[in-house]
């Protein structure tokens, strides 16, 4: 087990370097961070050169990248161009997004699994067909559309939820944004659970469980569900990272000052240290979530042993 973890961690290194370098390349090589600082005004050449030197931008790109990574591993993410340190921005943004992600994950887990089990057990009947169709429709409506619609209906028309979230982002105000963020994944969890349940419902071990005279409830929860949820749990695990990085739209709609919001601002203003710093952390979260999922596998499915 220990060796497996180490092997996986080592495998993650090139992926981490590749992903972060790609982003680094896009931000620093395709764009011009110094020009961006001056906005529409043409910068004074001498000042610009000075800034370049200060920011280590006068070196070849790979050296800049190494320098940057070296700084990051010392905990220095640099300073946003407005003078605030990027770590400060992170400290205020990540807890908010984390809460939003938790709300979303809980919603997609509970609702998705329940719907998936119901439709999977009634494969081919009315409820199954409607759930499948509904999940397709949900997947087809882009988040920025469903976000505005739900905000309009629940927040503006009916006043059930706050249409925009306070800077402290309390849990209750995050319910509606969490639902919006969860919607697409929710549809996936439903479909995944449904497929898995429908496939396993005819498995030999389920037949055995019935032949043992177990009550239906026990057959479903202890035998069928336990096996069927393995792929679902995996999906939800990988989704954690994806949701955190993907919350840009939701955070924009509901004016939540989280990671997505900061990133969006950073990209608009070409605030390079903010963008690269946040993305680096997100890539890390994504990779660690994947590792966690792999390890969770061994717990859920004893057939898998890591050498």
């Amino acid at each position: 087990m220990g060796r497996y973890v180490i092997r996986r961690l080592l495998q993650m290194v090139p992926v981490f370097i590749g992903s972060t370098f790609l982003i680094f390349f896009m931000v620093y090589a395709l764009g011009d961070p110094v020009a961006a600082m001056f906005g529409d005004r043409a910068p004074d050449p001498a000042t610009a050169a000075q800034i370049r030197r200060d920011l280590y931008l006068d070196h070849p790109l790979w050296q800049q990248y190494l320098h940057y990574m070296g700084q990051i591993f010392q905990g220095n993410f640099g300073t946003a161009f407005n003078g605030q340190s990027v770590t400060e921005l992170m400290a205020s943004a990540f807890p908010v997004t984390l809460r939003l992600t938790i709300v979303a994950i809980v919603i997609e887990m509970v609702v998705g699994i329940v719907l998936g089990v119901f439709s999977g057990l009634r494969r081919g009947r009315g409820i199954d067909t409607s759930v499948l169709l509904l999940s397709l429709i949900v997947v087809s409506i882009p988040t920025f559309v469903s976000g505005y619609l739900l905000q309009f209906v629940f927040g503006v028309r009916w006043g059930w939820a706050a249409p925009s979230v306070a800077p402290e982002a309390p849990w209750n105000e995050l319910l509606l944004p969490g639902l919006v963020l969860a919607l697409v994944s929710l549809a996936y969890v439903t479909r995944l659970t449904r497929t898995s349940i429908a496939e396993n419902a005819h498995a030999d071990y389920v037949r055995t469980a019935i032949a043992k005279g177990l009550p239906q409830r026990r057959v479903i929860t202890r035998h069928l569900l336990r096996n069927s949820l393995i792929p679902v749990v995996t999906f939800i695990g990988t989704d954690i990272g994806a949701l955190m990085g993907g919350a840009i739209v939701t955070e924009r709609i509901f004016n939540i000052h989280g990671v997505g919001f900061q990133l969006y601002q950073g990209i608009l203003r070409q605030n390079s240290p903010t963008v690269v710093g946040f993305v680096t952390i997100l890539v890390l979260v994504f990779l660690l979530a994947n590792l966690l999922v792999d390890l969770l596998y061994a717990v859920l499915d004893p057939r898998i042993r890591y050498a």
Partner: protein
Amino acid sequence: MPESYVPKEAIGHGDGGSAALAIGEAESLERRPGAAPPGAGPPAGVPLGKPRSLWSDAWHDLRRNPVFVLSALVIVFLVIIAIWPQLIATGNPYRADLAKAQQGPQPGHPFGFDTQGRDVYTRVVYGARASITVGVCATAGAALLGSLLGGMAGFFGGWWDSLLSRLADIFFGIPVILGGLVFLSVVVSTTVWPVVGFIVLLGWPQVSRIARGSVVTAKQNDYVQAARALGAGNGRLLLRHIAPNAVAPVIVVATIALGTYIALEATLSYLGAGLKPPTVSWGIDISTASTYIRSAPHMLLWPAGALSITVLAFIMLGDAVRDALDPKLR
């Protein structure tokens, strides 16, 4: 390998509404050819009806599937108006009449006007072109690149396989919308090609995984081993025995991806990083309209509806095709 179980569909999870469907579901396609699930049909070994080939069987099912017929009709309609929008919209999508800004429906203008007093109906019709172009081109690119690279990885294995898998991991590791924002915010072009290029860049790994998986499965099939033992060359093996096995899963993934790519384009355009005016795009129009959702919701609803229906049509088509091609899920 535990990794192979993990559905790492990074493309557009979370929020862009662009997630690739069929995670796990498409994966099950890799395990073809599959028999009916045990016990689902009559007992094994019962010959039922005359045997039909996978494709003719699938076509037979599809023609009778209302979901398929409906979504195919919608798509045909969309393609036609993408090519000839004048057929159903005689107006000019750019003509602005500020006096009518944000006004609701009136005779000759069933969807009302936008903030600049342009006819929403005409703009919704003209918006189809950008969406369909991006969707079709990006899908074609991602499917070609992905099946080529994935097929080779699966067929040759070895270092080539490891290299491509790592490369795919790198692209999976980048949150899609984020990558799109960063990449496209520095591009000044107003054409659709940067968006298409970006989607191909982040979309191919998904196709390549599916293609690789089915090639690996096919390679292990007894009949392929037999053909190899009989001295069939690599080219013949690939073309006659292995490629046909990978085609069905790739088609399914690509059809569904087409829908999600359209949603992704709209999301990027909405965030200001995708298509740029003067291109008429549903994403841009929705973005503009979102500010006025309280006073003039019609400006948002029509393009949003058109976008959702387009995405839905492609996803439903892919779903129907998958059901037809995957005998296991009947």
